[in-house]
Structures are given as structure tokens and as C-alpha cells.
């Protein structure tokens, strides 16, 4: 037996439910500090490459990669962008970690390319310069990338 409510009331209730769901989708994100930590590491590795011995650069890169691999599974799901809630897994695309890792791979290649260009141009600290430029792109581009992911999730729901 159907409830004694009008179609209008049912539609209003459904639109309210949808609005609340969109409010949660708007929280899909990686923690903002993630991009800043990443950018700091990027600059640090650039400085190490310019000023440190080869072994230190290698060790630093491995250490940074290991640290990232440790925290990535916890932050890249997109479900804990805010400390105030955990978004349900079925609302979040499983491709978010792949999208972010893909973005980082492009940034790594861009860093190498930029460092080679700066070096060819006679810059004294090509790796540091490349690190700073790419770190700025990571800090600005990371949140934009997550905005794009959220728009995809909203379109998927509607």
C-alpha cells in the first residue's frame, strides 16, 4: 500500500535527499595538506639534486617514494578530504588514486624536462628551479584536479 502523500510531496522529499547527497559529494577530496607536503618534497629533492651528492639524491628519492607509498592509500581514496566526515565508498570513483598517480607521473616527466631545459639554458640550479616550478603546479593543479573528479561524481549521480 502506498503512503498517503501527494506526488508533489514525494518529489520534494526526493529533491531534498538528492541535495543532501550532493553536499556529501562536494566533500570528495584529498586532504589539502597532501599537495603542500608533495610540493615541499619536490623542491627538497630538487635542492638535493643540485647541492647534494648523488647517493643523497638517490636516498632522498627512495625515502620520499616510500613515504608517499605509505600515506597514499589512506589519503588518495578521496573519502577523507575533510576530517569531519568519511564519504561512503560507493559515492567515490575507484579511479581517483589512478588519476592522482597519473598526474604525478606527468609532473615527474615535466620536472625532468624542465630541469634539462634550465640546464641547457645555463641555469646554475636547474633541478631546484624545475622543482619550484612543478611544485607550484602541483599545489595549484592538485585541487583543480580534485574539482574535476567531484564534477564527474556529481554528473554520475544526476
Amino acid at each position, binding site marked *: 500500500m502506498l503512503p498517503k502523500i501527494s506526488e508533489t510531496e514525494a518529489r520534494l522529499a*526526493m529533491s531534498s535527499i538528492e541535495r543532501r547527497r550532493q553536499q556529501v559529494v562536494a566533500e570528495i577530496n584529498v586532504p589539502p595538506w597532501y599537495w603542500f607536503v608533495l610540493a615541499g618534497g619536490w623542491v627538497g629533492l630538487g635542492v638535493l639534486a643540485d647541492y647534494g651528492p648523488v647517493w643523497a639524491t638517490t636516498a632522498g628519492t627512495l625515502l620520499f617514494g616510500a613515504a608517499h607509498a605509505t600515506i597514499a592509500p589512506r589519503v588518495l581514496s578521496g573519502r577523507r578530504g575533510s576530517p569531519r566526515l568519511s564519504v561512503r565508498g560507493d559515492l567515490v570513483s575507484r579511479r581517483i588514486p589512478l588519476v592522482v598517480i597519473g598526474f604525478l607521473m606527468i609532473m615527474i616527466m615535466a620536472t625532468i624536462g624542465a630541469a634539462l631545459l634550465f640546464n641547457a639554458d645555463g641555469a646554475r640550479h636547474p633541478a631546484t628551479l624545475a622543482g619550484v616550478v612543478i611544485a607550484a603546479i602541483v599545489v595549484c593543479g592538485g585541487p583543480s584536479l580534485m574539482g574535476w573528479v567531484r564534477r564527474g561524481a556529481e554528473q554520475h549521480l544526476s
Partner: protein
Amino acid sequence: MVEPRFDELIHPSTRLSIVALLASTDWAEFSFVRDRLAMSDSALSKQFAALEEPGYITVERHVSQHRRRVRVSLTEVGRRAFEGHVAALQAVISSTASRTS
């Protein structure tokens, strides 16, 4: 397939908003729900108590970064009730649509 089941407890707009918000989360902080629904602490606490009593939600209190926090989540009972309620709303909409077509 969820069986349509209109839920009188969930249907009032404020409670429906709370349950809909929680249905999309594993858990949410009290402050998140309060801010999204633009409610006072006391009004929201009353609604939480009404939903906690039949076992639709659980309210956990914990301390994080030296601050007391309240974490709310929908229980399995609450989730089933919500899904049944949504199915009932959809049934009303589709039955009206089929009558008019």
C-alpha cells in the same frame, strides 16, 4: 530490490535531511551535519535523540586534538529504513506518472 516502506519517523523534512546526509557517509561529525542543515546544536541534538532511540543512528563521543567530538553514523537498521522510504517515495512518483500517462 528494496521493498517500499514509508517511514513516518524519517519523513519529516529535518529528519529526512539528516538521514539522507548520513546515508552518503560512513560517519559524520555533529558539526558537519549542523552546518549543512543550518541548525542549532540543541535542535539537532533533539533530532538525533529521536533517531537514536529506534536504533537508526549511533552517536559516539570521542576526544581528538584536545577537543570533544561527536561522531554520528547510520546503522544497518537506519539504512534499511531509509532505502525503504526512498523506494516508497519513488513508488508514489511512478504510480502518479503511470496514472496520468
